[in-house]
């Protein structure tokens, strides 16, 4: 019995291997992989160049070298951002503002002054946020903040929210308002200051990369089911003993494996390349350092994991729909279009017609978690308010699961005439 199971397993593995081979031996799919590698390099470079540093001479340096210097500057201020630190930052800012370089009319000189502010820039941003209008970030707010006022940064975060909620400019229900305030109050303070620019840059470009990855993975799996018909191999396939059972499962397995392995490998490559160049520091700092108003009380690392998880579910959903279209229409071309519709046409649609409620549930949102993290997108479920990410990830994961038996049945019952 046991050896029988082992034999069966070996056989499924064998079929799976051949299915994967079928996918990667076609020219267009080989090209797609090459394209993906090129895009990986391009996006990684763009991301690396997001980190900029101005040296004491006023020269701008971006990328790996810039990151190294910026990191060193910020490390000088590393630690909890207590009231004392906030006060010290305001003082430091004032001192720099009053330096001869800052007061000079020469732009090069001003750049030198700016260079000195880079170490405190993260903390200065918090103060700017706390003293800016709700949706109107003021770069110079800190210049008009007194040392005493600076201490109230964390308090201001909550009180600003309350003012906004009371202004009547928004449409939240009472329970949603309570939820927002609770989340704000629950946020752990003081924040821990560290160089977080590596993570920050990584997250800023990650959605674009996930979208490209999802589309290319959709492209790779789009032919798994339709190619049997298009190459006219269908008659032999479906008249084989396992052609309407395990051979179908092995196709589904191949689709799932390709999706998952590609996603993991390319996500890892992107992450490793970017973080190796820009630094992994600050993984445990709160994302509010980057996204002041976020209701998600999580760290950079957690935000990254959430974005990657959402991206995976979105990619899997698009790939599964593509395979379903491939099995149903028997046309690879149609199947290729499906991920584009799912991931690109929906956001376009939501711009054309305003369906604010529904739009946040569209599958493209799974790839836009970075943006969602910044926004207040809430859902009331059974009287309980939850954020939209907590809803869409499980919903689409479940949808993928439910599509599998449909895909199996559609293909298993195919008629070949």
């Amino acid at each position: 019995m046991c050896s029988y199971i082992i034999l069966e397993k070996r056989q499924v593995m064998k079929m799976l291997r051949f299915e994967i081979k079928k996918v990667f031996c076609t020219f267009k799919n080989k090209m797609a992989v090459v394209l993906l590698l090129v895009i990986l390099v391009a996006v990684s470079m763009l991301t690396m160049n997001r980190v900029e540093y101005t040296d004491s001479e006023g020269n701008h340096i971006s990328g790996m070298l810039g990151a190294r210097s910026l990191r060193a500057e910020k490390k000088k201020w590393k630690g909890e951002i207590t009231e004392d630190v906030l006060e010290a930052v305001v003082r430091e800012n004032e001192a720099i503002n009053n330096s001869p370089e800052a007061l000079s009319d020469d732009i090069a000189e001003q750049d030198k002054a700016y260079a000195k502010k880079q170490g405190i820039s993260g903390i200065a941003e918090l103060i700017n946020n706390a003293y800016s209008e709700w949706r109107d970030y003021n770069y110079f707010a800190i210049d008009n903040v007194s040392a005493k006022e600076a201490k109230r940064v964390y308090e201001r975060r909550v009180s600003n929210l309350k003012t906004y909620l009371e202004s009547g400019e928004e449409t939240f229900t009472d329970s949603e308002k309570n939820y927002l305030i609770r989340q704000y109050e629950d946020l752990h303070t003081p924040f821990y200051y560290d160089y977080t620019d590596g993570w920050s840059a990584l997250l800023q470009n990650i959605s674009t990369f996930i979208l490209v990855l999802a589309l290319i993975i959709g492209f790779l799996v789009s032919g798994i089911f339709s190619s049997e018909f298009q190459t006219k191999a269908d008659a032999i396939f479906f008249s084989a003993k396992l052609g309407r059972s395990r051979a179908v499962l092995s196709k589904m397995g191949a689709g799932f494996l390709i999706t998952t392995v590609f996603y993991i490998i390319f996500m890892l490559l992107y992450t490793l390349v970017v973080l190796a160049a820009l630094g992994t520091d600050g993984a445990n700092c709160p994302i509010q350092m980057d996204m002041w108003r976020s209701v998600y009380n999580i760290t950079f690392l957690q935000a990254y994991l959430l974005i990657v998880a959402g991206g995976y579910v979105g990619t899997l959903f698009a790939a599964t729909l593509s395979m379903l279209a491939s099995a149903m229409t028997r046309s690879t071309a149609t199947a290729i279009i499906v991920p584009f519709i799912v991931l690109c046409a929906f956001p376009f649609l939501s711009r054309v017609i305003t369906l604010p409620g529904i739009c946040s549930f569209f599958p493209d949102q799974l790839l836009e978690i970075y943006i969602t993290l910044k926004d207040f997108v809430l859902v009331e479920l059974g009287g309980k308010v939850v954020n939209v990410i907590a809803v869409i990830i499980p919903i689409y994961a479940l949808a993928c699961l439910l599509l599998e038996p449909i895909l199996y049945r559609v293909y298993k019952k195919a008629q070949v005439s």
Partner: protein
Amino acid sequence: MELKFEDLTKKFAGFTAVDHINLVMTNGVYGLLGVNGAGKTTLMRMLCTLLEPSSGTITYNGNNIFKMDSEYRKRLGYLPQEFGFYPEFTVKDYLLYIAAIKGIRSTVARKRVRELIAKVGLSKAADRKMKKLSGGMKRRAGVAQAMLNNPEILVLDEPTAGLDPNERIRFRNLISELSEERLVLLSTHIVSDIEYIANEIWLMKDGTIMHKGTADEIINSMPENVWQCFVEKGMVSEYMKRYKISNMKAEPQGVELRIISLEKPSEDARRIEASLEDVFLYYFGEKAGDEDAAV
């Protein structure tokens, strides 16, 4: 073993491709003979569980083959009329893949693939990509895949179509070699393909089996006679209008005609023995197969 078609019918959007067919098959070679569009492929696809009948049943030893599912398909080998493959696969990989979806264990499969590659004469091309094979080689790879599971039921849809005369002869020999101890259903529109190897011939037209039996029985079923006569060149078109001409041979003194007719077409006409080709012409109103079918 017994395979049985009962009232088997397949309709495509109102068009009946297979029309209430009732037949029984046991071991042996069955030749399904009919012109293009007769419904041969449709019938075979139903036999291979690729198409569900609109009505009627196919049973294997009394069990519906569609209910038997893989239990039935494991006994089946099928060479489709036009078949595709995975162009980037080598012959060996292709056969190993088909062996896998036929549920043949890896160790057995490897041995079987090696044997069959030798048997169909593809040893030298075993590592060549499928897309690089000639038409005849592809067909041989097709036969090899059909034979992988040593099928009880072997279905060959026009296996010789499009092959050159030499290849056709080799193919015919291969098929008759493979036909032992199993049920073979072979379709063709070329009489000579099955004239000698089929134990039973079915003449199919417009979705129905109009005649079945051994070659002799089918020949005897023709109610008209076959005549041979010489006519002057100028008379040929006159004869063609009046009679079914199954063959024509130009000779110095005139044209030798082979005529199918109940009555003697001319004074000097000589009655000769009918062949399967004559019968085909008689029933289908067109010549059997293409020119090189004569080999």
